[in-house]
């Protein structure tokens, strides 16, 4: 289907790239349906999580292992039940990026990833049990204080 995007006008997305967030995202509780699409810059492909009922909100997201190879998310039993999975490997994880003026300080929220269940088409943002994970992990600036936990 075709969706209207915040940054790229009309974009064609596959039906299986559309996920329903029954609870929205934290701070965006009314945003219930999102599409995931790819856009390449200089041979690097970037993923977007775009609301499809409105052009806002829209997020740049990453597969966490791409930027944090040792990522070992721990979900609560309750979150696993809501996601209808018995194994964490059944879920696709995405982390939301924040891009400040200084690009080296790009951060990803490894504490509260978005988890997608491709079998049900449902998704939600979960807050992990990992006590050391931060909402502002700095993958390109390991000296940064916000990048604790690794």
């Amino acid at each position, binding site marked *: 289907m075709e969706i209207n995007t915040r940054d790229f006008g009309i974009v064609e997305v596959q039906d299986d790239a559309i996920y329903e967030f029954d609870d929205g995202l934290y701070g965006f509780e009314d945003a219930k349906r999102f599409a995931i699409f790819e856009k390449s810059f200089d041979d690097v492909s970037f993923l977007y999580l775009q609301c499809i009922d409105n052009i806002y909100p829209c997020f740049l997201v990453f597969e966490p292992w791409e930027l944090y190879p040792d990522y070992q998310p721990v979900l609560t039993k309750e979150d696993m039940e809501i996601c209808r999975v018995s194994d964490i490997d059944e879920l696709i994880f995405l982390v939301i990026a924040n891009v400040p003026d200084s690009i080296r300080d790009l951060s990803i*929220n490894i504490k509260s990833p978005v988890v997608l269940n491709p079998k049900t088409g449902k998704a939600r943002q979960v807050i992990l049990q990992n006590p050391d994970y931060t909402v502002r992990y700095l993958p390109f600036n390991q000296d940064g204080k916000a990048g604790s936990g690794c």
Partner: protein
Amino acid sequence: MLVISRKAGESIVISDNIKITVLSQGSDKITLGIDAPKDIRIVREELIETIEANKTSSERIDESDFKSIARLIKNKKNTGKKY
């Protein structure tokens, strides 16, 4: 920061109308009970952090920034697992 030690079953009281009781103590977490007026908002800290992070992350990103990010990603050694 004020630091107070409490055992399970003991409480502290804040400003006469908020009472926080340690209900139980496990190996890696404690369970708290909170009695407070209805208009007092009580949330886990990471929830507020997540809402703030989501809000600041929903801003538009310039195309020139993507080129910079692409460069950083290419430079970073990718040893992560992929699915």
